[in-house]
């Protein structure tokens, strides 16, 4: 595997840092801890940047779809609008409503955000093993699914702790929805896991190496899983047409009705971080991860990191397109759709994939 530019740079930095530590006599354990901190800082900064970008994109895409221009005032074509909004949110008063449970009210958004961000540690950003991700777990995808469903605990805690009926209703809806769609999402992921024969995201990426035709999106036996993943992941990120937990025309703002300032900011960040991680996983599971779509014979000047980001952004734009087109489902229709539509479809998808793999179509490890 040819090492990419990002890999080279990161390895150089690592070697340089280790040399420096050796010269200064810093114990190796301490160096490891520093490296971990650096990796987490990288992830957090990346998430923040991507959220800013995604919010900007959302506003532009929605504007363009609606015959508007979107933000135009701050900076060239409104590029600095979202950083400014982030600053504004930081400077706003933090209000805890009277009668609310202060502790619960505070930990809700933090919990939600942390649960979402933990998932980022196993995303394979680029070629190579350690340099381009925080950890390479052999159960990476399982970790993401397990941890991201912890996030709804944060929603529930926040919605309950707000002492507001709209928040409570929104939180209840969120929990019901996310638990239901988690099942469908898992079924879709299982198909890909069956195909690749591993739960490690690096292996899943490697399974799609080679030509464009090897990508999961072009393997026809994975199309039911793809459809399933597309629908369930939008529902997981609580976006239209599945945005019933925060349906603004019904529940005012759902579970974050009573939040302001940075606590609201955490929910907001968490939501977009969730959207982003869903897009990243989608890119890894179906679009070949960091791999370039160009044939191997052509030298690819673009690092894999950028490819992965590009694919994720494309998925995000599609979810935005969907969001600004469709009306919202009702809560009972939503559950019906999950249990009567998607879960059976999931079993069909697993059967199709299993058969295809068993018949030797898939090149996986089975």
């Amino acid at each position, binding site marked *: 595997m040819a090492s990419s530019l990002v890999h080279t740079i990161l390895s150089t930095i690592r070697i340089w840092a280790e040399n420096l530590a050796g010269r200064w006599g810093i114990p190796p354990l301490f160096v490891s801890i520093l490296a971990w901190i650096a990796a987490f800082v990288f992830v957090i900064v990346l998430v923040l940047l991507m959220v800013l970008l995604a919010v900007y994109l959302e506003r532009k895409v929605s504007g363009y779809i*609606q015959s508007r221009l979107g933000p135009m005032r701050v900076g060239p074509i409104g590029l600095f609008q979202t950083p400014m909004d982030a600053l504004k949110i930081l400077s706003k008063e933090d209000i805890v409503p009277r009668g609310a449970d202060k502790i619960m009210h505070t930990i809700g958004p933090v919990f939600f955000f942390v649960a979402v961000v933990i998932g980022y540690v196993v995303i394979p950003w680029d070629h190579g093993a350690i340099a381009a991700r925080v950890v390479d777990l052999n159960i990476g995808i399982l970790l993401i699914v397990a941890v991201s469903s912890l996030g709804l605990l944060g929603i529930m805690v926040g919605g309950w702790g707000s002492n507001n*009926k709209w928040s*409570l209703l929104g939180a209840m809806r969120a929990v019901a929805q996310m638990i239901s769609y988690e099942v469908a999402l898992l079924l879709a992921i299982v198909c890909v896991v069956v195909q690749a024969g591993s739960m490690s995201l690096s292996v899943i990426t490697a399974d799609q190496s080679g030509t464009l035709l090897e990508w999961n999106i072009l393997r026809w036996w994975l199309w039911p899983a793809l459809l399933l993943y597309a629908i369930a992941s939008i529902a997981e990120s609580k976006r239209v047409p599945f945005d019933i937990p925060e349906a603004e*025309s019904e529940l005012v703002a759902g579970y974050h009705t009573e939040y302001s300032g940075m606590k609201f900011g955490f929910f907001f960040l968490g939501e977009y971080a969730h959207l982003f991680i869903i897009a990243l996983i989608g890119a890894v599971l179906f679009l070949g991860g960091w791999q370039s779509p160009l044939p191997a014979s052509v030298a690819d000047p673009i690092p894999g990191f950028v490819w992965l980001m590009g694919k994720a952004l494309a998925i995000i734009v599609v979810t935005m397109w969907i969001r600004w087109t469709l*009306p*919202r*489902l*009702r809560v009972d229709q939503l559950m019906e759709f999950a249990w009567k539509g998607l879960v059976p479809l999931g079993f069909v998808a697993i059967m199709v994939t299993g058969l295809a793999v068993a018949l030797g179509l898939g090149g996986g490890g089975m």
Partner: protein
Amino acid sequence: MSETAQAPLRTEDITVNVGPQHPSTHGVLRFVVTLEGETIRECVPHIGYLHSSLEKIAETLRFGQYITNTDRFDYLNGLGNELCYVQAVERLLGVEPPPRTQFIRTLMAELKRISSHLVYLGTYGNDTGAVTVFLHAFRERELLMNMFEAVTGGRLLYNYLRIGGLRNDLPTGFDEQVCSFLEHFPPRLEEMNDLLTKNRIFIARTRGVGLLTAEQALSYGVTGPTLRGCGVSYDMRKLRPYAAYDQVEFDVPTFPEGDCLARHLVRMEEMRQSLRIVRQLLDKMPDGEVQADVPRRLKPEPGEVYERVESPRGELGCYLVSDGSDKPYRMHWRGPSFYNLQALPEMVRGGLVADFIATLGSLDPVAPDIDR
């Protein structure tokens, strides 16, 4: 599943306040809604937040001066309200406006109906979660606003109709403006229908929701598209033609289901019929004066009149009493939204919260029209 096996779970109804500040109350309305989980047990409307005592104001203004106030209660139907009031005064005075005036009045009222239904379409999309159609509808409405501005000089508050006539004739180039709108608008309407009305999710959200039978609707005095969505073909324009409505052909669309979708479809079809009326009016528009001779100081004989016209929301009534002075002695507005909203608790009982919003939106209430 014996009864003893399960200890009775203590449940509690939630009472929530929808409004006065809530994203989808279309103005300032308040509903106290009792929920069992997400199911609505009871809904009690509280109105009056926008009560502006237009009926009392009328007693302090001269007949001609009051026209400016008629734009203000049902602000989506300004010209239609003016038409109702002006016709009432004309009947009191015994004045017959010239035919061209009647045509222009009808034309403006129909354009206003399209504009009002566009607002409905947009806000209803918003209520059901499809935000984009809101801006698309308002984009098209802007063209109508430009037309109203060209004719009346105002974009929302027109003060255009006069007792016995109009403030001014149509401006030059107005015909072309309307014609280009007639060309431009139908495909855009179809596009919005593709985006919202035909969408499967939208249909699922509205079909069978907010049911109202024809009998219930009539007993609550519900009129307009809400009543026609219950299958009753009740339209003042057809039943008691006023202005130039007897000169044009149009259909009164009705749908028998009585649900939100039926009401929505009635409005969509009414827009098409309004376009048809506008086209005919432009073709048949007579020449001539736009103002009948009326004295500068209007003093109708003592008497009273109850005038009814069809507003986009239903039957708009205007009761006017004159005591022989230059001011109305008593005036009363029958706001169609007022009676339409009264049927809401009946329609939403047993539904879900989302149904409540969908049903409220499908009534197309205008808060000042409710409170007057």
